Structures are given as C-alpha cells and as structure tokens.
C-alpha cells in the first residue's frame, strides 16, 4: 500500500468511488433558509443542478463515500473487497469541512453521503449519521442531505439518520432476488425490502405529524442496475411499480451497468446502450405522471423490451391506434395525457385554454411546441386525420429522425 492519501487525494478517490450512484437529486426538502443569521444554507423544495459532467449528468450534491473500504464483494461494484482499487477513508470532520467549503461557494446544494461497509453495519451507519449530526447541529447547516442507509443497521440509527437527512435511500441494485443472490452474495433481498418498509412507515408517520420529529421529508429512493443481469424491461418496470406502490418511493433510479476498472469476471463484458436507461426513465415517468399502469406500457409488445428508437408513449400509441384520434376540445385529461407529443404541463394549459376557446391545430402547436408528432392522433376544430392512423408507415412519419444519435 502506498502512503496515506491527503485529504485532497481522498476527495478524488472517494468521489470516483461514489459516481456509479445515479441519484443526485436535491428536491423535496422542506423549505427553509438561514435568514436568522445563525446557520448556512437553504432549501427551496426544488433541486438545483449546479453543474453538469461531460456526460450531461446533473451535479447537485457533493456525492462521496465516507470510505471505499468494504467487507462485501458485490460483483458489479468497484469498491468490492476483491477489487484492487486505491482505498481511502475520510474522517467525519473532513466531510463536514468539505461540504461547508463547497456550499459557501455555491458549488453544491448539499451532501450525498454513502459508504463501504467497514467493521459492521452499525459501526458504518453510526459514522454516516455523525456527519449529518455535525452538519445540522454544530454548523446549523440547512442545505440538503441525502444519506445512504445500510439495511442491516439498527432501527435506532435509521431513525436518527431520518432526523437529519432530507432523503434516505437503499439501493436495490439488481431487479430480481436471483440476480442479487448471484451478484451480491452477502446482500439479502428480504432484509432490503424490510428496511425499505420500515423507512416508508416512518416517512408516512412523520409527514402526518408535522410538529413531531422529522423523518426524511424528501422521502426515499433506490437504484436498479440495468443490463448486468438478464432482466427485461417489463420485469424492471413491474418491480418499480411495486416499489412505488408498496413503499411509496419518491424515485427509482435506473443505472445502465457501466464498465468499471478492474471489473469482475461475473459481469457481462459490454455495457447496455444508454438509450435503454433513457427509455426506462421515460416509462417510469409514464407510471408516475401520466396514469399508465406498469403492465400497460409494454402491452402488445412482444419481447418485454422498450423500443430503443421511439419513446414509450409513442410506441404505446402506435400499438393502440383504436384509441385515437382524440378530440382535444372534449377529451378527458386522462386521454389527453396519452397523446404522443403532449406533456403534463401542455395538457393542463390546454384544459385551461379550451374553457375559453375552441382549439385549432395552430393552437395545439403553440401549446405543445410542435404539431408534427401529434397530428395523426388528434382532432381539432379544423383538423381530422383521415387515413393517417391506418397507414403502415405511420411510425416513420412520427418517429424523430435521429433521436438515437443523442446516445451514440
């Protein structure tokens, strides 16, 4: 082992070790500021991306591990015991100082702290909680804190974590129990689900009792690695729907399995296309904001996989042409949301506008930003698609010309 890393070297090592976690959200915190002059920071409830990495991903939080030493040997993880990556460990005070120094310069919204497991689950969780406690109590830090929770840690520690953190998360990692057994032999799907269930109960209870002790007001999230095991998209979406339903998760993050230095032999040698991750996020939005049930998104599709070339809403519409065209001047909100090219905000403005006017195609173009994609699917005062929906080449008429280039 080379000589002990400096704090600055630790920052590089432990940020590198944390970057495979897709989440960087800073939204959903309770509104607060430091106008009383005593502390530092605020939360507006909406997240802020302070920068973007050269892969276009948001940099909102200082996302680091407390340490990348780990007693586990999960095949997909760069920090697994058997990897020969360089190791480092921050002191709790070092994390506190870095967070405050970055925050004062407006680089970040707060801290996302996770850790490899050292000694024991409780020993590690205690250290994570200590960082959050120092920030909140010693420094009156009012920025955002996201703590990774260790499923095996004692409930008392999780309760304390929830008092200081805006968001808590446990990563599911593999979408199926079998996948988890195969790639993360020390982890247990039952323990993970049980811990999620306990957190869900605590979050709901705290939200119902605004004057009681706080518990993770921004809720909990999780991450699923896509493309490491053989799960198809239908399986993944079904799993997500279960998590949103049962544990009321705020977000499920999908992380396309990424090649890592010094990777394990158990893994596939190639990464899945990033487009697959993108389509899963779109499908996830359909479930959360567009009223689609998980099973509906891929209904009529043959192989359980989302179409990589077109977005899942358009793909659904092309498979369900009997539901179109939709008259935008009379249709219910639920059906308006199914029109390809019309987002939630456009739909709400459309509904407000049609109370005062009868909408024409040009109105719709202004509301939606473009009309090329919607044209075959809508009826307006001056437009009725005739044979468009029966055309076999409809897909090429409405598919974006070079969308895939975005993911090349």
């Amino acid at each position, binding site marked *: 082992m080379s000589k002990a890393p400096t704090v*600055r070297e630790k*920052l*590089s*090592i432990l*940020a*590198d070790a944390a*970057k495979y976690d897709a989440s960087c959200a800073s939204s959903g915190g309770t509104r607060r*500021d*430091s*106008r*009383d*002059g*005593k*502390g*530092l*920071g*605020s939360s*507006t409830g909406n997240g*802020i*991306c*302070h*920068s*973007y*990495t*050269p*892969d*276009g*991903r*948001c*940099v909102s939080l*200082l996302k680091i591990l407390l340490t990348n030493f780990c007693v586990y040997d999960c095949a997909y993880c760069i920090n697994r015991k*058997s*990897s020969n990556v360089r190791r480092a460990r921050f002191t709790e005070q070092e994390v506190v100082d*870095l967070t405050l120094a*970055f925050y*004062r*310069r*407006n*680089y970040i919204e707060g801290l996302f702290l996770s850790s490899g497991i050292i000694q024991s689950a409780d020993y590690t969780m205690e250290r994570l909680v200590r960082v959050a406690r120092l920030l909140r109590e010693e420094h009156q830090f009012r920025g955002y804190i996201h703590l990774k929770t260790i499923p095996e840690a004692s409930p008392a520690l999780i309760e304390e974590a929830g008092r200081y953190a805006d968001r808590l998360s446990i990563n599911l990692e593999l979408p199926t129990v079998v996948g988890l057994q195969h790639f993360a032999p020390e982890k247990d799907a039952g323990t993970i689900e049980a811990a999620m269930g306990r957190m869900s109960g605590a979050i709901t209870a705290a939200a119902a009792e605004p004057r009681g002790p706080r518990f993770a007001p921004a809720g909990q999230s999780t991450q699923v690695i896509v493309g490491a095991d053989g799960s198809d998209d239908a399986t993944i979406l079904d799993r997500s729907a279960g998590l949103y339903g049962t544990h009321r998760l705020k977000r499920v993050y999908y992380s396309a399995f*990424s*090649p*890592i*230095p*010094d*990777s*394990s*032999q*158990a893994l596939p*040698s*190639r*990464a899945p296309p*990033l487009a697959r991750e993108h389509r899963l996020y779109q499908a996830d939005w359909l479930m959360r904001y567009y009223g689609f049930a998980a099973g509906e998104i891929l209904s009529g599709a043959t192989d359980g996989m989302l179409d990589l070339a077109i977005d899942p809403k358009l793909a659904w519409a092309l498979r369900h042409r009997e539901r179109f065209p939709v008259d935008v001047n009379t249709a219910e909100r639920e059906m308006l949301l199914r029109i390809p090219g019309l987002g939630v905000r456009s739909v709400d403005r*459309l509904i*407000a*506008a049609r*109370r*005062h006017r009868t909408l024409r195609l040009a109105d*719709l173009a*202004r*509301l939606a930003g473009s009309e090329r994609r919607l044209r075959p699917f809508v009826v307006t005062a001056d437009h009725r698609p005739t044979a468009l929906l029966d055309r076999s080449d409809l897909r090429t008429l409405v598919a974006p010309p070079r969308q895939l280039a975005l993911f090349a």
Partner: protein
Amino acid sequence: MRRATMTVPDDLAAFRRLARGLLAEAVPPQAITWSDGEADLFAAPDTVATPPAAAEDGEGSRMPVAPMPIVPMPIVPVPARFVALADEVICHRAPERLALLYEAVWRIAQGERALLEVASDPLVHRLERMRRGVSHDAHRMTAFLRFREVGPNEFVAWYEPAHRVLRQVAPFFTGRFAAMRWAILTPDGSLAWDGAVARFGPGVARDAAPAADGLESWWRDYYRATFNPARANESALRRHMPRRFWRNLPEAEAVPELLSEAGRRTAAMTTAGPDQG
C-alpha cells in the same frame, strides 16, 4: 404616435404607471412606441423627437396619429396573474417586451379578463415564452454563480446573466448565505450583502471579478472524479450547460481534457477486461 419611455429598463412600477395612464386615455397598442432607456434601435426616426418635459413624466408626446375613436376607459384592476407575468417578462432583454405587455393589459381591459388562461393565444404564448426564458435564466444564475473567497467569511462572485435577473435572484442568495458577507457583480448591476442589508449598485466591468480562490482546484478535482468516461455525452452537456457559461465556471476548464480522454479511458476498462478474482 405616442411615446412611452422607461428610464430603468426593468422597473415594473414605472411600466405600470405608464400603462395605467395610457389605458385611462384609451391609447391603443398600435399607437404607442415604447422605449426602455437602452439603445433605441427600433424607434422609427419620425417618433424620436419627444419633448423632454413629456418624456420625463413618461407620458410621451401628443402627436396625433390616424383618427381613432377615443373612448375613455374606466380603470379596471389588472388580474394578479398579469402582475406576476409582467414582473418576470419586464426583466427580458428583448425591446418588444413592453409593447407586448401593454397589448396584453389592453386586451384584458377591453374585456378579455381570462386572456392569460388562454396559453394557445399567440400573444400569451409569446409572453409565456419570454417569462420562461427569464425564469430559466434566473434559475441558472442560482445554479452557475460561483463565489470566490476574498477575505475571512467574505465572498465575491462575477456573473453574466442573459436577462436582467439580479433582482429576481436576490432573495435566493440573501436567504441562503445570510451569515456570510458577499457581493454579486454583473454588467447590469451589483448586489452587496453585509450580513443584514442588501444594497443594489451599478454594474461593473468583467475585470472587477475576483481571482480564483484556493478551493477551485479541489472543486475541479471533484468534477473530474465524478465523471464516468464510459458515459461521455458532449451534446447533453452542451444542452444543459451551454458554452457561454463555461468561462465563468471553474470546473469547465476540465471539460475538453475529460472529453478527449474519455474514449481511451473507456477502452482501457473494457479491453483490460474482467480480472481473475
């Protein structure tokens, strides 16, 4: 042609006073030339001769135009929704913002009380796009502004907003960094916070920006380390963080190198292949 002149381009109260006066006289939108005190590129030559006295109280000249039916209009209160919209649109740099806002308030006063709910209306659509541009720009200022430490607990930032959003973002910064002393410098104006009071001041030139402080290289290290070369995607980066912001972002200096090395680093990971463990 009537002339309506603002001396401060984003002074909403002044705009409302002017608009109220014009509405009371029932001056239709097409009979007004708006000017915002900035270089007046759009004024037609024959309307420039504004009597100074008239310009001062913002009433403009009384030069008659084509005969119009002048029907004095009762003063109707404008909807709160219009005030909220105007509060943002007035910060836009496009000179036509004033004429468009007046056209909207004119139509509302003419009886289209629900005009702003009709997002499909071409005028509302245009104003809404301007509002979104301003709001997006203000959001970006809260995101991309970087403080540099210039003394114990003293920070200064230089920023170049696309629109005049300094006033819009002031509460964000005073609420977040209340216990620090700081100043934000922009070409249009500046804002200084001494821990208790916020003071707006004149704009400054770029060379007034402070030099990098010692933490910036740490931040750049973090930025490098949190990037996964296997996911390099320059077009997504440029979409979210357009190039014009890069020169004031300390981390952006690392972007060209990170992108040019990404292919090699990814190839090294995949060809080195799985280890033997």
